[in-house]
């Protein structure tokens, strides 16, 4: 039996009816068509389904959609606004912090949630911040450089 789910995604309030066994990632992708958020494993180990829920990075494949009732969710589609890319997105472009791009949404959301709460992190903290996200292409270091660039204010004018 479907149940009502009210949540806000990328600033847009939604009222839906979902099956209790639907995962948040499934509702985002299938019901809301936000396919930017991917899925990489069935064991909540790869982090590529990461979204920002009430300001926290969480794995949308490891929670029921109904557990997001009343929550504010931000997905990769919600990072840019008014035709402007988020500084992290610009930095990812300039520093080649992605290759196949399949883990990129999770990397960006993890990085954003972290930098929002820790604006001046150390290198170690930045590595910790994306330690739950697997990237098979880049070897991570370019992602750290991109985060560092944002922290250093290289993209401030667009903030």
């Amino acid at each position, binding site marked *: *039996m479907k*149940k009502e789910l009210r949540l806000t995604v990328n600033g847009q309030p939604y009222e839906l009816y979902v*099956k*209790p*066994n639907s*995962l948040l990632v499934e509702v985002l992708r299938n019901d809301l068509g936000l396919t930017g958020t991917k899925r990489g494993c*069935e*064991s*909540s180990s790869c*982090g590529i389904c*990461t979204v920002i829920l009430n300001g*926290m*990075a*969480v*794995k949308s494949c*490891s*929670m*029921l959609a*109904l*557990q997001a*009732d009343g929550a504010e969710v931000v997905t990769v589609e919600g990072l840019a606004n008014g035709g402007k890319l988020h500084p992290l997105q610009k930095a990812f472009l300039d520093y080649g912090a992605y290759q196949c791009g399949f883990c990129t949404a999770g990397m960006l959301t*993890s990085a954003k*949630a*972290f930098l929002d709460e820790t604006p001046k992190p150390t290198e170690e903290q930045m590595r*910790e*911040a994306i*330690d*739950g*996200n697997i990237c098979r292409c880049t070897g991570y270091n370019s992602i750290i450089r991109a985060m560092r660039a944002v922290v250093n204010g290289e993209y401030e004018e667009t903030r």
Partner: protein
Amino acid sequence: MINDFEYFAPKTVKEALTLLDKYRDDYKIIAGGQSLLIIMRQGLIKPEHLIDIKGLSELNYIKFDAKKGLRVGALTTHRTIEKSPIIKKSFGVLAEMENRLASIQTRNWGSIGGNLCHGDPAGDPAPVLISLNSTLTIASINGERNMLVEDFFLDYFETALEHGELLTEIQVPTISPNTGAAYTKFNVIENDMATVGVAVSITLAPKGGHCKDLRIALANGAPRSMRAKQAEELLRGKKITDHLLKEAGEIASAEADPISDIHASAEYRQELLKILVNRVGKEALSRAKKP
């Protein structure tokens, strides 16, 4: 594929306990669900009723009182504990442990109570809580009961939690002066599940500096989080030397009964326990000596 189930999201503990009582024959409690959903997805368990306690704000708190000690609601997330100023200040080892527990995403969503109830002997919080002589409170429709955390674990993924019961609070006694506590786990990949882990807390006598009291607890040393009591006995009341610590490592390793799996053989785990008990013991000792 996750089976269909009837979903309940009680708003109060009372409501939750009533539901647990009502569906005692076939329900599962979901807190964060990061462990539960994996086995549900594999079709290994198919509960008819899922009772979601994630929203019970009643059980999400950290309270500290110099006499009574620390009280943590079972649904407090790992991340909240990790970042709590009072815990950093007065229970540093807890915050250190949480900081190494899996990834930020997992810590943001997972709760300390959920972790304990999963009953995975590789879990990090259990040994640390055991080493701090922590207790916990279990509630049911018929009332509450308390027990030592070290008595909570029975076997692989099996805890003392009966049907109809809910873990509500964890209590950590105030750490007495001249006490040092430390936790270290060994793993090939950082922040991974512990191949083995060791928590030690040592209290030194104000005069003479001999070991007044101590606790040694092991992660993944056996089918359940365990205390290395014989190793403790060796050290209790004595002036702790490098030599004694080394010996304690040998004893703890012999006490332990780890298994062989794809990540390490039982023999290797026992080797690691020798080393870790020694190292963590040293660390705890030096912390105990710090004024």
